[in-house]
């Protein structure tokens, strides 16, 4: 497995999706070639990510410098343990998402499939670059590119609704990043003269304590993709896009990049001990808790399956922000693990939602009654994914929720325990409700189901992955522990 040095692994990991994106228009002459390129690129990227993760596990930090943007900052990549985790998640799930989107697009006879596949690959490229970015400026650069490359995906249908959603998507994401995130990044640069990621943080002592909450607020609200409560509206609006895009948005790239950025900032820029000592993060703890509870309640009211999953994602993202805000070692590890667990669980749910739409054209949860027996595999996968997100033991999700709870106790925030408990109860209700309807309620709407194996296989695989993650979590756990040096 060592024919590639870590540096070339970074290069391959970042450029492979770009190569796929560039080749797709030329391969479009024959649909099959174009559709194979996506998964193939995914496999190559995943292998590169494995290499990088192996090197990071061995204690190294592979770096690769391209150019020098400004004194003290260069356009380069350096993989942190947290970056390795996100890299694995993004590339791994891209393979399945690519296969799934081929099945979905063909099943639904969508048009512009070439443009869709090309921008899909560019989005993953941006996600990989964010995962392995060398410093905060490179991270910001690819964060913006991710926004602009996912815009054509969100407005794929070219309908009026799609364009309004696109406009909201752009205004919130670009607005928050330009007005809040960029000055925060530059403020750090001016105050400390450097922007690279250092375990234990670079701000300790560089900025006065009373500035910490404001700077954290600039980062928290600057990263629109983390969908904290006031700036979450773009996420449900982006549900108008085809399901593979929602899967990409929710599990593989966009929101993950958001919370990943917040976690990187807390761990590598502020430093966990400095943030805990200065107490700058307490307001964020309560905001994240509020977001968890509020979005879970809204999710219950949603009858449309994808909208409900969207609000569930908003609350799950705040789990990770909560872990970062508690600012203790274990809580941060829990947040890192939750990135992985939530990705696997939520992508399963979205794959199932898309598959149901492709095969039976049902979007409303109330119409799902009695279809359990007709689509057993799909609802089985949905059940496993839901359990993982709720955090029931045999599934991976339980680990991250457990770490978060221990972190909260460490920080002495018992109220957070109550928040996590309530949200688990709410999760149980709104995630298992569709499954219960499908298996136990009589069918009241009969629809012809046409089989598309390509959309059924990926959700089953990711469901099994959620289970496996429970047993083989140690690789990710070690990476998470390495995170804070």
């Amino acid at each position, binding site marked *: 497995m060592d024919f590639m040095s870590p540096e070339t692994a970074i290069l391959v990991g970042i450029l492979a999706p770009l190569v796929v994106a560039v080749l797709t228009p030329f391969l479009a002459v024959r649909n099959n070639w174009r559709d194979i390129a996506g998964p193939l690129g995914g496999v190559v990227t995943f292998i590169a990510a494995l290499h990088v993760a192996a090197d990071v596990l061995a204690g190294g930090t592979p770096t690769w410098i391209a150019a020098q*943007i400004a004194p003290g900052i260069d356009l380069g990549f350096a993989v942190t343990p947290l970056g390795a985790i996100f890299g694995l998640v993004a590339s791994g799930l891209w393979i399945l998402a690519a296969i799934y989107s081929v099945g979905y697009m063909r099943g639904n006879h969508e048009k512009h499939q070439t443009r869709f596949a090309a921008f899909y690959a560019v989005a993953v490229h941006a996600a990989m670059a964010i995962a392995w970015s060398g410093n905060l*400026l490179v991270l910001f650069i690819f964060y913006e590119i991710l926004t602009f490359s996912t815009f054509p995906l969100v407005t794929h249908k070219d309908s009026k609704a799609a364009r309004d959603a696109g*406009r909201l998507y752009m*205004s919130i994401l670009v*607005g928050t990043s330009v*007005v809040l995130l960029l*000055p925060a990044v*530059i403020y750090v*640069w001016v105050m400390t003269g450097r922007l690279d990621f250092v375990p234990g943080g670079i701000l300790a002592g560089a900025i006065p304590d009373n500035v910490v909450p404001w700077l954290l607020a600039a980062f928290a609200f600057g990263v629109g993709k983390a969908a904290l409560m006031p700036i979450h509206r773009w996420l449900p609006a982006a549900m108008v896009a085809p399901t593979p895009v929602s899967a990409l948005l929710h599990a593989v790239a966009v929101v993950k990049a958001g919370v990943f950025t917040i976690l990187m900032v807390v761990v590598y820029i502020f430093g966990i001990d400095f943030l805990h000592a200065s107490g700058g993060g307490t307001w964020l703890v309560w905001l994240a808790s509020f977001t968890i509870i509020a979005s879970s309640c809204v999710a219950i009211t949603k009858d449309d399956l994808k909208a409900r999953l969207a609000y569930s994602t908003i609350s799950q993202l705040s789990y990770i922000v909560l872990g970062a805000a508690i600012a203790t070692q274990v809580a941060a590890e829990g947040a890192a693990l939750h990135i992985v667990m939530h990705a696997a669980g939520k992508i399963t749910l979205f794959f199932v939602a898309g598959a149901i739409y492709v095969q039976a054209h049902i979007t409303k949860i109330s119409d799902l009654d009695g279809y359990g027996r007709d689509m057993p595999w799909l609802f089985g996968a949905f059940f496993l994914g839901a359990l993982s997100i709720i955090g029931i033991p045999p599934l991976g999700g339980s680990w991250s929720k457990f770490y978060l709870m221990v972190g909260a106790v460490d920080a002495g925030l018992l109220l957070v325990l109550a928040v996590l408990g309530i949200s688990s109860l709410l999760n149980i209700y709104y995630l298992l409700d569709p499954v219960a309807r499908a298996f136990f309620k009589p069918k009241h709407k009969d629809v012809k189901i046409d089989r598309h194996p390509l959309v059924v296989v990926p959700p089953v695989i990711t469901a099994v992955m959620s289970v496996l993650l429970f047993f083989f979590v140690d690789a990710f756990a070690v990476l998470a522990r390495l995170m804070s040096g």
Partner: protein
Amino acid sequence: MSIASIIANLPALVVVIPLLLAPIAALIPISGAAWLVAVIGSGGALVSAFLLQGAVSNGSSFSYHLGSWPPPWGIEFVVDSASALTVLIMAALAFVATLFARKALPAEINEKDIGKAYSAWLLACGGLAGLVMTGDAFNLFVFLEISALSSVILIALGAGTDRRALVAGYNYLIIGAVGATFYVIGVGFIYAVTGSLNMADLAARIPDVQQDTVIMVGFGFMVAGILVKAAIFPVHIWLPAAYAYAPSAVSALLAAIATKASLYVLARILFTMFAGVPDVTALALEWVLIPLAIAGIFTGTILAIYENDIKKLLAYSSVAQIGYIALAFGIASTAGVAAGFIHIGNHAVIKGGMFLAVGGYFLALRSRVSLSAMTGLGRRMPITTTGFLICGLSLIGLPLTAGFISKLYLVRALIAEDMIIVMILVLVSSALSVAYLWKIVEILWQRPEGEEAPLHGGEAPALYIPLWILAIANLWLGVAPTPLVDSANRAAMHLVGGL
């Protein structure tokens, strides 16, 4: 004409080559030949400017005495890292615009007038280069008028397609003449008190004159005149009409370099001539330049959002971008002035590219390019539109483009001087600028076919190759900006030095 004498006379050549080729171009009736003369003129100026920038790249500066009369009596051309950088940017953009003009000018101007058009074109390029190079206050007025009058002629030539170009030219003439005369009155006051016209000599004499009223009045008149020529907020009214109705090649030339020269002159007045009386300049910076710049940024952006004609929209956005440069100079710290020079370079490349793209649309559509006429152009003219998009993304400052670098350094300068409110205003306005660019992008790509203006002949390489030169320059300055950033820093160090 030995090589040594050419090298020795480079500072003069940058200005003389275009100026002397102008009468020759006027005599040539064939449009191809006249264009060739224009290319030789702007190309020669570009080569000389490039060599000059090389000569001062180590931070040194030297002066060139016209007619070998030593200053303070004779007229002196000053070549330092600041003036060499500005002249190089202007010469490069002028050359690219001249390449674009080959097919663009004959399509909009009567065949017989082409020679005279190129003559005015060369006069404008030479005049603007002289404006930046000269070290003599009155000689600066002469170059100011040369470039202004030739720009008026170029704008009025747009009458072939839209008769409002004549009124736009007329208004620019009146307002420009009043501005230039204000400048001359200022020079008169300063000359009456100090007795010298050479800028370096003035910088030495002004502090020990200390008759505050006369210095203050002279300074006020000079800065007011230059503000008019640089189209800074309240006196920018001539700019939108001038850029909108001028022929497309002329809009590209003027948008890219015309106001930059006046902005550079503003910096020289503030930071070299009146460096000796810091309290006078500080007053002007804090209470005049910065507020006007911010007001200009917001009016420009907001008016651009509601504008329907694409060239007027880009003109309003130019007013906003000029506001950014003026704001950067207003900060008056080395980081601020460096940010100003960086944005002079980046904005020239961005706005030049966008106007070239709009020129390409105009020549394909054969009618005024309003937003409704541009529906669905993204599919029918892919090459031009992608170039336009790259320059557009650079305008709003997407990372990995030139615009991002200038925004980065401007915000950094603002934070270093902890002008936090100004920084927030700048960021909000740059977020607003996303609004009007997105309006265009949506129309270009996403509007369904249906009611689309007819195309006369698709995209001609002669039109989109210059555009792509600038688009690639945008990306290049975005990824590896060190050459521009270093020379801008040297220029700032030279101008503001220990400040």
